[in-house]
């Protein structure tokens, strides 16, 4: 096995384990731990690479967990992209298939309610961690912060398509402002 496949395999195991931790907040909430694993602990890519992959995935269509695909790709090419994607999708999908098969249909059951209430604050803590990690790595100057604050206000308060905000910030970047 060459080096690239070895990295792909390690990414596969780590992401597969993480995928089962993504309760309530989605895969986005796993970003800080993925960054810690691939960039800080193993040094396969830099934090900068991670942020770039994250941003590229945001401007492409599709579910937003595809950032994991690009992180895998950056670390270990196409095998890495495939490994990361399968790892994030398949374990939860198997669980879903099992629960559909056995007819556990309702998230409204007493047990489901209890689990959801227990996990809700944790998933919010995770999503806030993702926001924190991304902001620390991408927002530097006072002008960046101003643009960031306006973007959050627009995204939170209006129903504009987020692509407009991404486009506007991209334009400001090209103009040398951000």
């Amino acid at each position, binding site marked *: 096995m060459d080096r690239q496949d070895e990295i792909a395999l390690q990414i596969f195991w780590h992401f597969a384990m993480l995928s089962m931790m993504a309760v309530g907040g989605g895969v986005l909430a796993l970003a800080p731990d993925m960054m810690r694993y691939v960039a800080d602990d193993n040094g396969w890519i830099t934090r900068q690479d991670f942020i770039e992959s994250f941003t590229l995935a945001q401007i492409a269509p599709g579910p937003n967990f595809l950032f994991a695909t690009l992180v895998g790709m950056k670390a270990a090419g196409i095998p890495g992209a495939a490994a990361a994607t399968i790892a994030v999708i398949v374990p939860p999908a198997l669980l879903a298939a099992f629960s559909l098969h056995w007819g556990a249909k309702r998230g409204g059951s007493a047990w489901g309610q209890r689990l959801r209430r227990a996990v809700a604050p944790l998933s919010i803590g995770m999503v806030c961690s993702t926001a924190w990690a991304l902001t620390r790595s991408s927002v530097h100057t006072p002008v960046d912060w101003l643009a960031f604050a306006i973007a959050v206000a627009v995204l939170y308060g209006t129903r504009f398509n987020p692509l407009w*905000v991404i486009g506007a910030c991209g334009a400001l970047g090209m103009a040398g402002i951000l």
Partner: protein
Amino acid sequence: MTDTPLTKFQLFRLFAGMSLMGFGGVMPWAHRILVERRRIVDPTQFLEILAYAQLLPGPTICHIGMIVGHRQCGQGGAWAALAGMIVPPFVFVVGLATLHQIYGQAGWIQDLLRGMAVASAALVAAMALRMSLALPRTIRNLIFAAAMFAGIALLHWPLLLVMLGLGAMSLAIPVRER
């Protein structure tokens, strides 16, 4: 529900189309297409499916696809919907990243992405804000969310350990009914 259930191929196409439209998230399109346009599920069913999907770990949008696919066409339908949701955007995003690998050294592309990264941080921050404000404001929720944030964002502990520890504690301490 529509009278004749969809075939596997139709499910694949339905979710592939939905996924490729989803810039900045597929969820709004899932509602628009499944409920408003195609009337495959009614609004109440959609909420019930969403609650079920959120209970499962992993990407919520994929679980919605699998549940709808399963109701239309059994296990095969669930996997067909999942494949539709993932494969086309996977190809798209890998193509985009390949282009970036080839042309990404150009200064203007780096400027563009640096600007866009501010917006993608804002996107996650707005989501974190929305989720936080939707959570009931109790001391319990505040403590657990803050503990998760401290563990992941500030101390950089492995998510697996933090999640298992806090998850067990959160399940053990019952939520007081209000």
